[in-house]
């Protein structure tokens, strides 16, 4: 086929009076589009291309089993989940307080929102032991403290980076059942350690430029006696 040249975007010759109702009738549009002129040029017939020859499909065999009752197939659902809406208080560089999980109470720096909707977060690791990690927005308090995150590049990190490795299929054998259940915990791949170091290097520099911020991130958050969470400004 000849390569298509760049075309100007198609504009409708029929302006909308209201959505769904055009200004011109069918016969007026016929005249405006010049179908009469094209027909006149082509001997009274609108030119048609012959349909492209379809590739030969193999002859289908009749199925060997017909179910007794006609069962309706459920409709296909093509909905894709949208990325969770990020709270306005959480912007890249915000210090977050984790509320659940292994690192509950830790104050942590927010890097970016991943396509799945989870938040990418880092301690930094050297400061409070929280590695590059995903965290759900619902289990997080966004404080109003921000860290300068301009020197940090997190473009290479996404959900696939954090997915668990698919377990290798073990051949069935009685020895496997009576032996140790799982192999020892896999050592963290060196590449992940390097990623942690590069992300944290720029962050730590920005953190150290603010007095007390390093100790702040190293300390855990807790409620003390007399403190009312609904009255706290974070």
């Amino acid at each position, binding site marked *: 086929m000849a390569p298509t040249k760049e075309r100007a975007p198609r504009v409708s010759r029929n302006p909308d009076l209201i959505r769904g109702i055009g200004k011109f009738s069918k016969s007026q549009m016929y005249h405006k589009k010049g179908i009469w002129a094209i027909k006149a040029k082509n001997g009274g017939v609108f030119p048609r291309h012959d349909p492209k020859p379809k590739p030969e499909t193999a002859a289908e065999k009749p199925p060997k089993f017909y179910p007794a009752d006609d069962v309706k197939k459920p409709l296909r659902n093509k909905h894709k989940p949208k990325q969770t809406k990020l709270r306005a208080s959480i912007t890249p560089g915000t*210090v977050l307080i984790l509320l659940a999980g292994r690192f509950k109470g830790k*104050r942590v720096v927010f890097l970016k929102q991943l396509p799945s909707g989870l938040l990418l977060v880092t301690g930094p690791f050297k400061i409070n032991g929280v590695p590059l990690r995903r965290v759900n927005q619902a289990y997080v308090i966004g*404080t109003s*403290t921000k860290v300068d995150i301009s020197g940090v590049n997190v473009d290479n990190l996404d959900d696939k980076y954090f997915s668990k490795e698919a377990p290798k299929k073990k051949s069935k054998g009685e020895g496997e059942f009576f032996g140790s259940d799982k192999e020892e915990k896999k050592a963290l791949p060196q590449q992940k350690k390097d990623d942690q170091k590069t992300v944290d290097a720029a962050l730590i520099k920005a953190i150290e430029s603010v007095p*007390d911020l390093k100790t*702040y991130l190293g*300390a855990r958050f807790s409620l003390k006696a007399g403190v009312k969470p609904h*009255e706290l*400004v*974070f």
Partner: protein
Amino acid sequence: MPFKRFVEIGRVALINYGPEYGRIVVIVDVIDQTRALVDAPDMERSPINFKRLSLTDIKIDIKRVPKKKDLIKAMEAADVKNKWEKSSWGRKLIVKKRRAALNDFDRFKIMLAKIKRAGVVRQELAKLRKTAA
């Protein structure tokens, strides 16, 4: 035992209940047994129940229901704002407001400062104890 703060025209009061909580107003008229007409430079003149007012020591010199311009002039002449902010009551309220608006990071920094101050105090105390012993 005798009363010192009276409800009178020109008495500066603090609203202690309701949507205008914490506002400093001036009593410009008395409506009846229960209500006064109050006014402040940045609010519409409105009636308010005496129960919602806490009287202060400050009084300004105005006529009954002055025009806004005259009210503002009188308040500047009596320097109400500064007097209030320097008074012990006013200072306590300012500290309360500031504490309520503290960030999580601010609270952390205050904790560090308190620990530091306590350490210094304890050192001095230890020195004094040594010389006294």
